[in-house]
């Protein structure tokens, strides 16, 4: 018994560090940048970072739910292009309200296709969403006829649609408010509801989840609806901020989003991670970008740093779990 407690105590301490490493890293990181970089820790700057991160952040919330259940969603990038093009295009045609509604339904339908194929037909999520990435990009181009879309310049300053990307409440930018509000809602659902528990169970051990009476197919299906919903919200913010859209505006987002999720510490194997971690992971990505720019490095230097940071973060996570730094493979 003593031995048992000893082992668990030890594991718990390691687990504690492993589970919370990202928070520690975040604090260290902020302090280091705060000291090293002028103008970094100003409200103006921080607000700016969070605002630019909001779109990736909102999508990352949904993708986190998908990843927690043990799957991937690579189609969010082209889905973002699709949603943004649609909501911008429909704004002038049927009005902002109807436009948002139609776009959300269309995006949720795409999510449902993902969910049907992966949840009910049990196809590999990487390949299915890869195929959907391509297919949705094609759909977007077909929809727009290959042309960029924008909202009539004369109404850009007057439409209430501008609120989502350009508005503010009590001095805080709207994208930030939407991001954090959605993070709280989805975070609560994932952490504290029976639904969230089922998502973790399916991701942690799908077989055991089925043996426990959980309808795994439905859970997986639903995660893709959540993901699509988040992409829809992000499309509204993006469309409203830019008041127009290119056909390929979301290209590459799927991987940036995934980078944020992984950096936060949510395991791609499913069953472990959280919304809070993702929020921090995405913010770190944003702050890396911002800090490097303030230091005068070129814009894309952030990607090089992200490369190193992602691998280090996951490596430490993996190493803490296996109890040794290097892999035992010969």
């Amino acid at each position: 018994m003593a031995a048992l407690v000893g082992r668990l105590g030890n594991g718990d301490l390691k687990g504690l560090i492993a589970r919370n490493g990202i928070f520690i890293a975040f604090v260290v990181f902020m302090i280091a940048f705060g000291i090293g970089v002028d103008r970094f820790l100003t409200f103006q700057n921080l607000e700016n970072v969070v605002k630019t991160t909001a779109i990736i952040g909102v999508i990352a919330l949904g993708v986190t739910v998908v990843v927690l259940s043990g799957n991937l969603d690579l189609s969010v990038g082209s889905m973002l292009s699709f949603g943004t093009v649609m909501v911008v295009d429909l704004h002038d045609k049927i009005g902002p309200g109807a436009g948002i509604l139609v776009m959300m339904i269309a995006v949720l339908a795409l999510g449902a296709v993902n969910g049907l194929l992966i949840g009910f037909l049990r196809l590999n999520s990487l390949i299915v969403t890869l195929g959907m990435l391509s297919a949705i990009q094609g759909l977007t181009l077909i929809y727009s006829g290959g042309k960029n879309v924008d909202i009539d310049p004369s109404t850009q300053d007057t439409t209430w649609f501008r609120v989502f990307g350009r508005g503010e409440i009590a001095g805080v930018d709207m994208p930030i408010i939407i991001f954090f509000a959605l993070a709280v809602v989805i975070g609560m659902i994932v952490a504290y509801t029976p639904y969230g528990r089922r998502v973790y169970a399916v991701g942690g051990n799908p077989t055991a989840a089925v043996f426990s009476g959980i309808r795994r197919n439905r859970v997986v299906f639903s995660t893709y609806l959540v993901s699509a919903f988040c992409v829809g919200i992000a499309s509204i913010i993006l469309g409203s901020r830019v008041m127009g859209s290119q056909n390929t505006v979301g290209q590459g987002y799927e991987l940036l989003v995934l980078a944020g999720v992984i950096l936060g510490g949510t395991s791609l194997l499913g069953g472990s991670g959280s919304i809070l971690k993702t929020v921090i992971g995405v913010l770190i990505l944003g702050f890396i970008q911002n800090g490097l720019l303030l230091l005068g490095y070129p814009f894309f230097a952030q990607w090089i740093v992200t490369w190193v940071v992602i691998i280090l973060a996951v490596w430490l996570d993996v190493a803490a779990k296996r109890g040794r730094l290097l892999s035992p493979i010969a």
Partner: protein
Amino acid sequence: MADITATQDGSGANRFLHWIIHHPIWAFVVIVFIFFSVMNEHFFALGNFKNILIQASTLGLIALGMTLVMINGNIDLSVGAVVALAASLTVDIMGWPMFEGWGNWQILPGVLAGLAAGVLLGALNGFIVWKTGVDAFIVTLGAMLGVRGLVFVYTEEQSFFAMNFAYSDFGASSLVGLPTLALIFLVFTALVHILLSRTVHGSNTYAVGDNREAAVNAGIRVGPHMMINFMIVGFFAALAGITLSTQMGASTPNLGTNFELWVITAVVLGGTKLTGGAGSIIGTFGGVLAIQILRNGMNLMQVPAFWVLVILGSILIGVLFLDKQLNRKGAEELRL
């Protein structure tokens, strides 16, 4: 892998049937080939076939390496970025003043640097996968961003143009009646096919992907083995970047964007399992041809390029669906 089929029994037709069951993608290749031959007068022409092969060579070269990595049970998402890096390095370095007096030989240091960069980045990916035990998906996802970042920083977001015309002439040249680029692709396809099907390294590639623990138990040095395959795919990505830049006579920092997705699509269409342990170069070759014939044929029929994306995505998912249906165990299956 050993030729497991029982070749001694059955007639030629039977053998063909057996072969096509193992490489269903080739049935698809034949169907689209016939379809476009009938539907479009310009499709069935030697010149067009050469075109298809040239166009296929870029994705095809990378797909050869990717097949090895994926049979290993790994994946490499960084190939698109490596394409851009190798192309940029090659085109830039051959224009360096120090090689000015070298005549056409000035191309050589550029090409060597480009290939070396690909092999080194592959080695780095493989080494990280080996030593840290982090999943290849994550390692190469990081590299995909990071290497693309390197390209943008190195090129300062500029395109480079090849001042030596021998370089761009190479992309349009022919050898023994075939476009040189197509020939390079075909030769490497044959070489990698032999590597995979006849050598110990090839056998081990299947073993590691099929059951990594068994491979470790059997004393295969799994880490270095996987690293070699990452170096091979790095080499091919770099080579593809260089051949692509010879076609354009230039390099752009955005070169190779989304190539990883196309290449993986081709390899999966060719029957390689994502979980590793199964696949073949013949299948991959079929997958690459299928994609390129579709693109080419639809282009000739003036179908907007958008539709190709939709059709390709659907085919990828469709193949996965069919594979699943064919491998069902039937009604007795445990319903999980």
